[in-house]
C-alpha cells in the first residue's frame, strides 16, 4: 500500500479548504502518516489540538530506522542551521527524512523544502494532487 507523509503546510491548506474530513478514510486505512514534529508544532495552535488528539495514534510517525536517524542528522546539519540555504525547520526535515527513507510520497506546500526532497528522489504532491490520488482519480504527471 502506498503511503503519504503530510507536512504542516498541506494540513493547514486542507483545514482552510474544509477538506480535512476527506482524510478520514485514508487515515483509517493507514495510508497517511504525519511526522511527530509536525504534530508537536501544530499542537501549539488551539485550533489543531482536538484533531491531533483524535488522530495522532493513527498517523504519528517517528524517526526509528538507523538510516532515518542518519539522514535526519545530516539534513539538520545541512539545512537546519540559520545560515544554511534553504533554511528548513526541524519538522520539514523530519517529513523529508521519513518520505525519503520509506519511499512514501510527500505532500507539502513549500517550494524550498520541496526542492530538497526532490534531490533525494522523493515524489512531492500538493493538496489537490493528494486528494485526487486518495479518491482514486487520475493525477496529472508529477515531478519526481
Amino acid at each position: 500500500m502506498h503511503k503519504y507523509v503530510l507536512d504542516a503546510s498541506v494540513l493547514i491548506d486542507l483545514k482552510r479548504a474544509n477538506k480535512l474530513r476527506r482524510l478520514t478514510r485514508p487515515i483509517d486505512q493507514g495510508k497517511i502518516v504525519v511526522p511527530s514534529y509536525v504534530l508537536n508544532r501544530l499542537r501549539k495552535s488551539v485550533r489543531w489540538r482536538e484533531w491531533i488528539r483524535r488522530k495522532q495514534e493513527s498517523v504519528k510517525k517517528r524517526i526509528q530506522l538507523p538510516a532515518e536517524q542518519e539522514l535526519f542528522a545530516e539534513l539538520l546539519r545541512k539545512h537546519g542551521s540559520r545560515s544554511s540555504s534553504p533554511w528548513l525547520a526541524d519538522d520539514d526535515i523530519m517529513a523529508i527524512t521519513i518520505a525519503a527513507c520509506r519511499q512514501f510520497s510527500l505532500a507539502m506546500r513549500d517550494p524550498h523544502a520541496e526542492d530538497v526532497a526532490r534531490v533525494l528522489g522523493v515524489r512531492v504532491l500538493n493538496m489537490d494532487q493528494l486528494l485526487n490520488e486518495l479518491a482514486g482519480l487520475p493525477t496529472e504527471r508529477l515531478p519526481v
Partner: protein
Amino acid sequence: MTQVERGPWVRPEQLRRARESLGLGLDEAARRASVEAAELEGWEAGLGGPDDEQLWNLAEAYGRPVAYFFTETRDVPGRQDFRVQAVLKRELLDPEGQKLVVAEFEELCRAQSALEAVLGRRETPPIELIRAQARQIGVPEQLARFVRERWGLGSEPIRDLRGLLDRSGVKVFVVAVPGEGLSGTSWWHPAYGPAMLVNRLEIEQRRVFSMAHELAHLLIDGGHVLCGYLNLEVAEETFANQFAASLLMPEDDVRRFVEPLRESEELGGWDTPDSALDKVARRYKTSREAVAWRLEHLRLLPQGFTQARRREWSVRRPARGRKGERWRRHVQHLGAPYISMVQEAYSKGLISLSAVADMLRIDVAQADEWLRTREEQ
C-alpha cells in the same frame, strides 16, 4: 522493526551549552525535559544520544530549535549578569523565565544575522563609528549630546528612537519578559553585532527609556547586563539612566519647555501635580518618573522629589489587546526590519513556512496567516 541503538548523533557540547546558557543544573534540566539526569549527563559526555522525542523535549525546555544540538554555535558574549536580582524584591522576579528570554533573544539575534547574510545585507553597523569615539566620553550628559549631534537631532525631542536604532544597525527586539523587574538587556556580540532586548510588558514610555538606557551600555561597556528599573545604585546603571534621560530630554529644550509651567507655579515645588509632569512626559514620550528624575537632576524640582513620590505612581501595564490578536502584536514588536527580512526570505524561497514560525516565535498556523495577510497588504 529494529530498535535503533543510538550513538552520539548530536553534538554533546551543544547539549551542555544550551543547558548552561540557562544556568540549569543537570537535575533541573532533566526534570524539565522529562529525561533521566544520568542519561542527560551521559549524552553531554558523548555517551549515546537522545531519541527524536527526547530531542524535542530538550529543545522545548531550553528554548532552542532541535537543529541547535547538531550545529556548532558561538557562546554568548560573557556571562549574563543577573545582579539586578540583588537589589529587587525577590517575589517580583522570575529568574528562570528571564533566562529563557535571554535564550530567545540569542535565537532572534542569530536569525537576524543569518537573514542579513542570506539577503546580502551584512554591513558594518553605523553605530560602530559612534561607539569608537563614545568610549572616550565619560560624562553621560556629554555622551548624550555627542550622540544627538551624530544623529543630527538638534535639541528637539526624539520622535522615533527605535527607528534611529534600526538605522544605526542595532538589532532591537521587544519581547515579553515574565516576572517583573527586568526592563532590558543588550550585548555587542562578536557574531551578531549590537543588539538589545526590551520588555514588552512595560508601557511604551518606559520601553523608550530602556532603549536609550541600553544604548548607553552598548556604547560604553558592550552590554551584558540584565537591567532592572530599580537598580539605581549600581554605577553603570546610574550612568546609563543619566545618559538616557539626557538623550531623551535634552537640557536646553527641557528648560525652555518647563519655563511657562514654572512661571505659573504649576511646576517646581513639592506640591507639583502629576498633571504637570505628564505634560512634560508627553512631549518627550517618556514616563512620569523619568521626567521627575530628570527635572530633579536639572534642579527644576526639589532634591528627593522622585523618591518621595514614586511609591504613589503605580506601575502601569500596557493594554493587552484582544486575545486572538495578541500574537500579531507580538510579531509587530519584533521590529519592521526583522519581520520584512523574514517575509522577503520566505518569498525568495530561502526559508520554509515552519522556519518563518520559528523566526517569528509563533505557531505554524499563525505564520501561514501572517504571510497571507502580508501578501495581501
